[in-house]
């Protein structure tokens, strides 16, 4: 991967080759450095009085990187770590190399040309391949406020397959009059932000360093939130979870399987999430109280928001938070600080991995089972098994919520006919939900009532629909 910085001499001013002093790298020589990702080379394709271009060429050693320091291939790395764009595209690896090779220049120190280091000079930066999630426009939005003129030209994904359109890369050119130290710091911080990819080899302290480097200007940058969020979003571990490996077996991206928990900041919010989610929880709690339930299971507990509220409410003597995703359960465990709860509190809560397509005896005979925004994640052909396991578990009350598809029309960000979440297998109209509830109730000996959750629209109904199923008295001997 390549990055060039060019400066131009003003007529009668300092020679452009003084860039060598500012960078502390002699234009007449080719210098090579060992960096964690491989080898970095600094050379000057052009070094004249009028114009001087410094090039940083980073040769990423993919084979060495995966092998790790001891030359061993760790088990459990993902194929994506091996065949990826890191050797070619400007990413956190380039940023790290930049900081390593031009450390002094970035600090603004130049004993040979102190006044030049302090001055804004004409600069041209070229990054031939910059991964730019959010489109070329975002590059402009991030660099322009810092004093750059930005040109970001999209690169086609494969010119032999025009239908595939543009890749996620742009050819980035920056022009401006800035202090060289500032220019380097902009690149150091913003290249990985635009890349917004998994920083496979970035350790957490490197992330902290990146944020610190933007100390001078990050505070007032209007996109500060986006910048920090994108860093935090990728602080995940190096190695893939077992489930992500299964995605790989099936030629799909790890995220397509391991997506039970949304990555913070990774996706635009599909709905005003917090308020509606809270309204749903309040509605569910009200219904549980009304039903007099004390032993309750939250099936598909996700990140455990409802479980946390159930636990806070002494009405509920036994709370089971269940999910099919181990990751969801980990998040819930952390959120509830399970290990630090007093023993008596702990005894009220059980976190279990379960699947609604299998019968689970641990869920038998509870007062209430709650499925908040769960059924729409189940493939329709598998619903019958779920119905049997949920309604066959003998709970007195079953509460089910699901989106009202009709209401989607009022979400401006949703294209017509689209669903609210990528993993939704269906979204039902009010009539469809009512028909389902009626059938399930009849088949399993329950009666049911449907309620609306969230702001109600005369024509479209409310965003969430809720059904409360109450078991019918059975003839007992």
């Amino acid at each position: 991967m390549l990055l060039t910085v060019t400066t131009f001499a003003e007529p009668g001013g300092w020679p452009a080759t003084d860039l060598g002093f500012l960078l502390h790298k002699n234009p007449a020589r080719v210098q090579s450095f060992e960096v964690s990702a491989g080898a970095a080379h600094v050379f000057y394709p052009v070094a004249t009085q009028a114009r001087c271009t410094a090039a940083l060429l980073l040769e990423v050693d993919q084979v060495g990187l995966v092998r790790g320091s001891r030359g061993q291939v760790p088990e459990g790395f993902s194929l994506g770590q091996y065949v990826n764009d890191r050797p070619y595209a400007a990413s956190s690896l380039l940023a790290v190399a930049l900081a390593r090779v031009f450390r002094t220049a970035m600090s603004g120190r130049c004993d040979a040309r102190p006044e030049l280091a302090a001055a804004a000079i004409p600069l041209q930066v070229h990054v031939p391949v910059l991964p730019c999630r959010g489109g070329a426009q975002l590059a402009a939005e991030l660099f322009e406020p810092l004093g750059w003129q930005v040109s970001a030209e999209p690169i086609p994904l494969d010119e032999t397959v025009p239908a595939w359109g543009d890749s996620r890369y742009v050819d980035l050119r920056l022009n401006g009059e800035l202090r060289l130290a500032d220019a380097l710091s902009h690149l150091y911080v913003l290249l990985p932000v635009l890349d917004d990819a998994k920083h496979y080899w970035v350790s957490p302290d490197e992330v902290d360093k990146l944020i610190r480097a933007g100390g001078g200007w990050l505070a007032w940058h209007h996109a500060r939130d986006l910048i920090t969020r994108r860093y935090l979003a990728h602080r995940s571990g190096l190695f893939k979870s077992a489930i992500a490996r299964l995605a790989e077996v099936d030629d799909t991206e790890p995220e397509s399987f391991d997506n039970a928990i949304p990555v913070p900041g990774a996706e635009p919010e599909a709905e005003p999430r917090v308020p509606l989610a809270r309204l749903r929880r309040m509605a569910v709690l009200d219904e549980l109280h009304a039903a007099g339930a004390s032993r309750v299971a939250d099936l598909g507990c996700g990140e455990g928001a409802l479980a946390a509220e159930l636990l806070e409410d002494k009405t509920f003597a036994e709370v089971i938070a269940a999910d099919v995703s181990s990751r969801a359960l980990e998040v819930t465990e952390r959120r509830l600080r399970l290990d630090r709860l007093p023993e008596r509190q702990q005894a009220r809560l059980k976190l279990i991995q379960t699947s609604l397509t299998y019968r689970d005896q641990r869920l038998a005979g509870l007062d209430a089972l709650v499925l908040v925004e769960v059924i729409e994640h189940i493939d329709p052909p598998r619903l019958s098994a779920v119905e049997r396991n949920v309604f066959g578990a003998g709970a007195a009350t079953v509460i089910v919520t699901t989106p009202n598809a009709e209401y989607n029309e009022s979400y401006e960000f949703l294209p017509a006919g689209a669903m609210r979440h990528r993993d939704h297998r269906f979204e039902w109209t009010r009539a469809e939900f009512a028909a389902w509830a009626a059938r399930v109730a009849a088949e399993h000996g329950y009666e049911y009532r449907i309620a609306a959750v969230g702001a109600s629209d005369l024509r479209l109904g409310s965003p969430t629909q809720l059904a409360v199923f109450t078991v019918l008295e059975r003839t007992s001997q």
Partner: protein
Amino acid sequence: MTTVDVPELCLVVLVGISGSGKSTFAARHFARTEVISSDFCRGLVADDENDQAATADAFDVLNYIAGKRLAASRLTVIDATNIQPAARKPLVALAREHDVLPVAIVLDVPERVCLERNRARTDRQFGAQVISRQHDQLRRGLRGLEKEGFRRVHVLRSADDIDSVPVVRTKLFNDLRDRTGPFDAIGDVHGCLDELKALLSLLGYELRHDGEGRAVGARHPQGRTAVFLGDLVDRGPDTPGVLRLAMGMVRDGDALAVPGNHESKLLRALRGRKVQVSHGLAESLEQLAGQDAEFRADVGSFIDGLVSHYVLDGGKLVVAHAGLTEKLQGRASGRVRSFCLYGETTGETDEFGLPVRYPWAADYRGRAMVLYGHTPVPVPEWVNGTLCLDTGCVFGGKLTALRYPERELAAVPAARVYYQPARPFPVNAAAAAGRRDPDLLDLTDVTGKRVLQTGYLSRVTVNEENAAAALEVMSRFAIDPRWLIYLPPTMSPVATSAEPGLLEHPAQAFGAFAADGVTSVVCEEKHMGSRAVALVCRDPQVALARFGAPGGATGAVWTRTGRPFFPPALTEDFLGRLRAAATRAGLFDELDSGWLLFDAELLPWSAKAEELLRSQYASVGAAAARALPAAVGALEQAAGSGLEVAGLLAKTRSRAANAEAFCAAYRRYCWPVDGLAGLRFAPFQLLASEGANHAARRHDWHLALADRLADADLELIARTGRIYADPADSASVAAATAWWERLTGEGGEGMVVKPAASLVQGKRGPVQPGLKVRGREYLRIIYGPDYTEQENLDRLRSRSLGHKRSLALREYALGLESLDRVAAAEPLWRIHECVFAVLALESEPVDPRL
């Protein structure tokens, strides 16, 4: 006393005062591990075998150990004084809890002997008063032992007796494991003599008649044994006739019989007990009144002698009137008898006022086949290896038998409706089948650490965290488990080649198979697509009857993790084409099967993995195609101005060429597909059809079928190129190597080398079922564009294949096992267990480039 009989499985409670010689007696007649003594348990919890303060804790431990042993069907002896009824009570309860017989052996030694023995002991001294009091208590309790619940009581009254009496272990009455059949199990007859005679004739039995022309016996010329599943009597027209025939057959050794609830009630009525005369008992009593007293007495003793259930054929078959859970099989208790006669009810009644039965069969996970009756069903249906054979003959249905071990049904229709049932008997079988619940899978069938036994590798272990990952994928993404009867195993590459510029070469494959003693291999072209398994049914009726037709489909096409390949409508289009081709090729008829299961590759790769191709491979290509020429340009400029960059420039140019080769490699996997247009299906194995696992058949058989399929639909179905080779013959190896070179030289992915015989047993389990030899250019997609650079190749050659190979074998064994279970029509959970395990193993961390 001549002998002390104890059942092979029971709880023996020794009763005797201190010094009566219990421990000596126990040591003489039972294995050391069979005896649990209270003293020993006292020692365990208190470091002192005589610490009476620890008695309560000691008995907790004793009960716990005894419970574990009994649960595992092991005879257990309790060595404690047990002289007070209060001490014996929990032991009787323990025996009942585990449905084994409690047996008391009382050592009633004269007080004087005990006193002497006590005085000789150094560790413990009881006073004479204590001994005397114990002796009194023992004597007082003796007569009540039977009442306390002991089913056998042996009292040994002298030291001589105790020293000399032999202890004999006897088989339980229900233990007929040495009877291997073949059997014909017959459902509820209910006095339908004509139908019974007709059924026996249909089954090949020759009826024997007495002087009055009454059937009094039947014998099968091949020595088969009929098994009556209870409820011979009541409701029907000729209960005495049925009894006469059945009793004759049992007496002659031509039949076995277990009692039904109707026999039980009839017996009570015959013995003059007060019973409610309903449910057809009236007819029986009336008909029997017309028989002589001797016959009625015979009937009484016949019913009285019936054993609740039988365990047959080495434990593989259990017969009981109302079925029997695994826990109760081969055991003896009131609870066992009651379950056998009446089944289990939920305590509720249905709209007809009849008890709601607990569906025990849905939960059944036992290995024994259970045949039973009791609950009339329109058609017998296998549920987890259990089958109800009561097809409501007396209600106008049929009288049905199952031939064992053939698993074939035989039935005769009722001549008429003899009795109106309280609950309408559904005669419309189709309507009943349509309402069938999907087979119930329990979480405990798949989760946690599991060890599976397969017929190919004895123990395959699945770790808990891998099962957890599989649970999520199986639940959220996979198709219905009723379709998902198989997942393909992973395959190992060949050992690494040392050839210049190559990581993989055929030589290592031939070498490996030659070393395993394989004399013939087939090299199959590796298609450039995605692995796909396709299950196609001949018609919707087969799909419904055999698989329950989840989703209303007529088959399924799935990926390596069990996800559907296409959306439902396209799946049906695809299955339609495949069905038509298979029909034209005559495969359904030839294999006499309503369904076929194919292992195949679906092309192009982009049809399934376009998202991945774009986001990963094409992106790498796009980035490289821009970045490297830019770097070359900058270096050329620098070279032009005299800088020393020649080495770097040459290397960067080489990398630019690698990047182009990389793009060319992935582009071969992409072509546009619209619906079925552009799609190619390349089957290479016909894994299974009804009743048969073909996976272990020779590959030429599979490939010949695949060719015929391809001929039947040249547009959709692709042939698999192949060449056979003898790995020990150099000319043959050279030809196959040249074939691989040509294939990969033209951009092909490579080949898979398999033993031509398919399944080949090596010294420790099967040899690898296949080794892949991938082409140089294809491996760029796997190892990165620059893997061919010398410094990279040198490092990449040190790759370890051990885990991958072991994984490939374990998954192969599981795959074969699941197909065996499909072929044997085993319960869904047994098949799903294997399929799930393959998915779980796939989540083990293995170098993904292998």
